[in-house]
């Protein structure tokens, strides 16, 4: 069975670690990035994820910047993308969808909501 791989991009080490723990316990292989500026610099280029979970409010490259560039540069074109944020505003959720995100998780979310979203998109 192909083990599904997930990249989490979030500047909060605490949040990254919690999400990673839940997904790892569900037998996903997880890589994390807390500095969004390194995303395109080879940090996960060999990882070839099936899904990326990307925070929006990040210090340097915000999540929308990453999402737009991922789509334009066709980085991991087959990977699903879930944006996650405390930004629960219709404007931002709609924008993520317009830019090609496959899902949106509003913080706070619980482990059930996280796994439901991930399993729905890339369930193994």
């Amino acid at each position, binding site marked *: 069975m192909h083990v599904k791989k997930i990249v989490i991009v979030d500047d*909060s080490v*605490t*949040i990254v*670690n*919690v999400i990673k*723990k*839940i997904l790892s316990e569900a037998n996903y292989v997880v890589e994390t990035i807390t500095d969004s500026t390194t995303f395109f610099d080879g940090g996960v280029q060999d990882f070839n994820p099936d899904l990326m979970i990307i925070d929006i*409010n*990040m*210090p*340097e*490259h*915000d999540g*929308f*910047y990453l*999402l*737009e*560039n991922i789509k*334009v540069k066709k980085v991991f074109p087959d990977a699903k993308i879930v944006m996650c944020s*405390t*930004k*629960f*505003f*219709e*404007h*931002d959720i709609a*924008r993520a969808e317009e*830019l090609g995100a496959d899902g949106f998780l*509003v*913080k*706070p*979310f*619980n*482990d059930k909501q*996280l796994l439901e979203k991930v399993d729905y998109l890339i369930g193994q």
Partner: protein
Amino acid sequence: MSGTIETRFWGVRGSIPVSNRDVVHYGGNTSCVELKADNGTHLVFDGGSGIYPLGNKYIKEGLPDNFAIFITHSHWDHIQGLPFFAPAYVPGNKFILYGCDQGTLAFRDVLARQMQSPYFPVKFSKWMADVTIGSIGETEININGLKIRSSYAEHPGMTLGYRLEYKDKSIVYLPDNEPFARFSMDKVFSEVQEEPDDLDMENVFLEDQKKKFFGFIGSADILIHDAQYTPEEYSTKVGWGHSSFELALKAALYGSVKHLVLFHHDPLRSDTEIETLIKVARQTVTDKGGSLKISAASENMPVII
């Protein structure tokens, strides 16, 4: 080491400029706040319609050598005055204009777009002053001894708030912010600092947000915060990206702020209604035995610390 900063409000209104007899005292211009440090450095937060009269003042007085404008976000009530900021058209003037990109749309292009035909007759490129455009996210900038920290606010689109520190003084500016909307307010403002249980994700998220937000506003001499709504109004406007004055008050008390300035008044809020909000807020502080000072921002109001 003691320093002095004079804060002066040139625009205090949210959403849209207003002009009628009911708003004469507090004023009708949209967001613009001037901060003058005693070392001659002048900063401006936001370029709403209030930056128009501020610019006219600088035409008379001349622009200081160390001058920078910090824009929180690109909604019209925070940038609509920039095309009318007269010092930008004067050759020889020099300043820096900071703000955040909107995804791949650079801050410079965000500003230029509002001056494109057919929306405005003069292009952004016609600014004759030496203007440096600084695209920033969450960062820290030092200008002649003034430290300015930026942090994302909870508002639709990419939106920043700013914390200015100069010697022993601090001023926080969060004109558009709806924090903690998806959390229980009892938990947010609980005095009990529990170690987050990493199995309780809501708690983990809450503590992460509290650490970030209260680390940003904490112990500020002045907190200028979004107070667009009454609690009753807010109940029907959750998700619009603004706060009630009650939330601003709770945040200021919890964050050990010294002086809360209610800001970004709703365009429909009359002078009389603002006076009522202040009375309610001050009574709350009195009832709690606190020492928090409360004001409502009004045009030309100076606050010197």
